[in-house]
């Protein structure tokens, strides 16, 4: 194979890292039993924060760190509210999504209208490979944590049956806060890679909107399994990364190529639900259920 072709194949690295990390972060959080509908709003905030922080610090790494910290704050807030209060997970998630959409514009638009510059990760094949390796290592670590460690067992228990877990000595609130922190750290990291490595263009309002939902579908179609998510994230990243190829070779309209990932997201969810995958990788049983202990301190 010639070097050009290899570069094209590996060029998917940043897109893959962005969607993969966001998707496994989402899956990790949902494993603890909290329905995560705030993902798209926090992803949009993550993009805005990454842009501003990288610009001011002059280095892309600072952008990633800042996006991670802000996303973790959101994750802790959601985990706390959804566990501590008898509150609808769907309602709190969507509300925070709207807050996120609004805050992203407040954070980034004023800066963008004053400074016309972007600080991003360097773009070359070496960096692309580094992104792929980094994200897969994180994925394997998350998988190991979930399936082999005490913390992973506690997270899964909190997602399957928090009442039983609690009576066996698991501190459901603490476990869900940890899951929210780790999960949203990955979502923030993914959002920063989306902007700083995959599409580093001058910020425009609404950047990143809708991408969180694609990550949501990537995670769902792989049953929230960190290793299987590698496959679904790769398929989506290729679809998005090669949209110009689709446009050129298949003669598709630009509007249709932008639509394809969303169509693919729907199809992926259907495939997951109609095949035996659904039974093998069933969603956590307490996902989205209000965790409320009658007449007791929580």
């Amino acid at each position: 194979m010639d070097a050009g072709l290899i570069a094209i194949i590996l060029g998917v690295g940043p897109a893959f890292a962005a969607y993969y990390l966001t998707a496994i972060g989402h899956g990790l959080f949902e494993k603890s039993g909290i329905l995560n509908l705030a993902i798209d709003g926090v992803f949009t905030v993550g993009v805005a924060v990454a842009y501003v922080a990288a610009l001011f610090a002059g280095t892309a790494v600072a952008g990633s760190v800042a996006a991670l910290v802000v996303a973790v704050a959101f994750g802790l807030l959601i985990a706390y509210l959804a566990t501590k209060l008898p509150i609808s997970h769907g309602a709190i998630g969507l509300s925070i999504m709207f807050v996120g959409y609004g805050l992203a514009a407040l954070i980034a638009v004023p800066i963008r209208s004053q400074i016309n510059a972007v600080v991003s990760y360097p773009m070359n094949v070496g960096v692309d490979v580094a992104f792929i390796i980094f994200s897969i290592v994180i994925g394997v670590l998350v998988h190991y944590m979930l399936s082999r460690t005490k913390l992973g067992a506690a997270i899964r228990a909190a997602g399957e049956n928090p009442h039983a877990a609690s009576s066996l000595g698991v501190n459901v609130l603490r476990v869900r806060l940890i899951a929210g922190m780790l999960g949203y750290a990955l979502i923030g990291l993914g959002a920063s890679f989306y902007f700083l490595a995959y599409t580093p263009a001058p910020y425009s309002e609404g950047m990143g909107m809708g991408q969180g939902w694609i990550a949501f579908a990537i995670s769902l179609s792989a049953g929230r399994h960190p290793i299987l998510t590698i496959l679904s994230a790769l398929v989506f990243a290729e679809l998005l990364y090669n949209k110009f190829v689709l446009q050129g070779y298949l003669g598709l309209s630009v509007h249709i190529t932008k639509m394809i990932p969303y169509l693919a997201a729907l199809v992926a969810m259907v495939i997951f639900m109609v095949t035996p995958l659904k039974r093998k990788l069933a969603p956590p049983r307490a996902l989205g259920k209000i965790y409320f202990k009658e007449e007791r301190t929580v």
Partner: protein
Amino acid sequence: MRLIVTKRVKPLKFGGIIIPFLSIVVGIFLATIALYGLAHVPPLLVYSAIGQSLISPQMLQTFVMLTILGVALIIPFNAAVWNIGAEGQIIWGMIMSAFIGLTVAVRYIIVSPSDLPKYTNMPGMFVLPTPTVSGAYAVEALTMNPGTAICLMLIVAGIAGAVWALIAGLMRAYLDIDEVATTLIMNYIAYYAYNYIVYGPLQGITISTSGFGLSNALHPALRFSRISTATTATWEGVALMIAIFAIAWFVLRQTTFGLRLRILGSNPQVLRAAGINVRKYIVLALTISGAIAGLVGTILFAGNLYQLIKIKTITTPPTHNIGYTAILVSWLSMLDIRGVPIAAYIVASLFQAGINLQSSLGGVSGGSAMISSGALTYVLIGFVLTTFTVLRVFAEYSIKVVREGR
């Protein structure tokens, strides 16, 4: 310090009124802090924008659309089926209204510039303002009675919205795929389909529209009639709002169908035990909701815009995200249809406040003037929604704070 959460024996007295109002006050306060802290928007500017919008006649059209959409969403919400896809359903309503209004109900007569004066004053003819690519002018001539055409627009838009929602309904009912995710993802599909259509099948034929992502303009005889010049609200829109509200109230409150929908929301096991096909009700709830949202597409197209205009960025669709805003209306009404118009009035004011605030940002330093009205509305609505979601707990639960070491 720890929290003790106890379920109330009876719901909080007047909770349905106190909690929404408290949420609005606290939510707006939090939004003001965010606006000041992040974008240096002076709080007084925010409050005056909200104050103005409460009595502004411009918000009437928003109120009409939000009331209809609030009703549209409250039907599935009562059944615990979450239709977040009103945006997409409105978009399809607009597209299909435009299809009827711009192709079926009119035909285009191409006339040379020298023949144009004959047509300009001819009754029933509408000359498109700019010439076509070939230099000739296009004249729209009605092919049917305007009343029939408007009815047709509404019917087709309703069907389009219903079909769009039906897809998500079937996926939820038969495959158990969360409708929140599918309806949301389908909004994006609808946006891009809309853009494809305004650059493709429904693009205009004149030099200023063709290839610019604009459709032809709607024939004036097919446009809804405005109530007054001070507002964009239309008689047809108001009539539809009253009719839809009355019918929905009757169906939800007075029929077995409505009762079953509400039981589906509170205790689906009872319905299953009674041998009722739960799937059918899930599908119906979403389909009816989509049909009503589709009608809003016609109200927007034939009442306000008269033309399909491309979506430049995903934050600025022609709907101004009203389909999302309507979620706040139905939640603030505490899922009681009688509360929908009140909630719609408040939210329409917030929605208008976003627009008013945007236009008064010119003097704010630091580039904040570039923030879109859509984003400002998101900030206001997001904080009110979040506060409400949290405070709502107090209606049914009491929360005590206890010091540690008792």
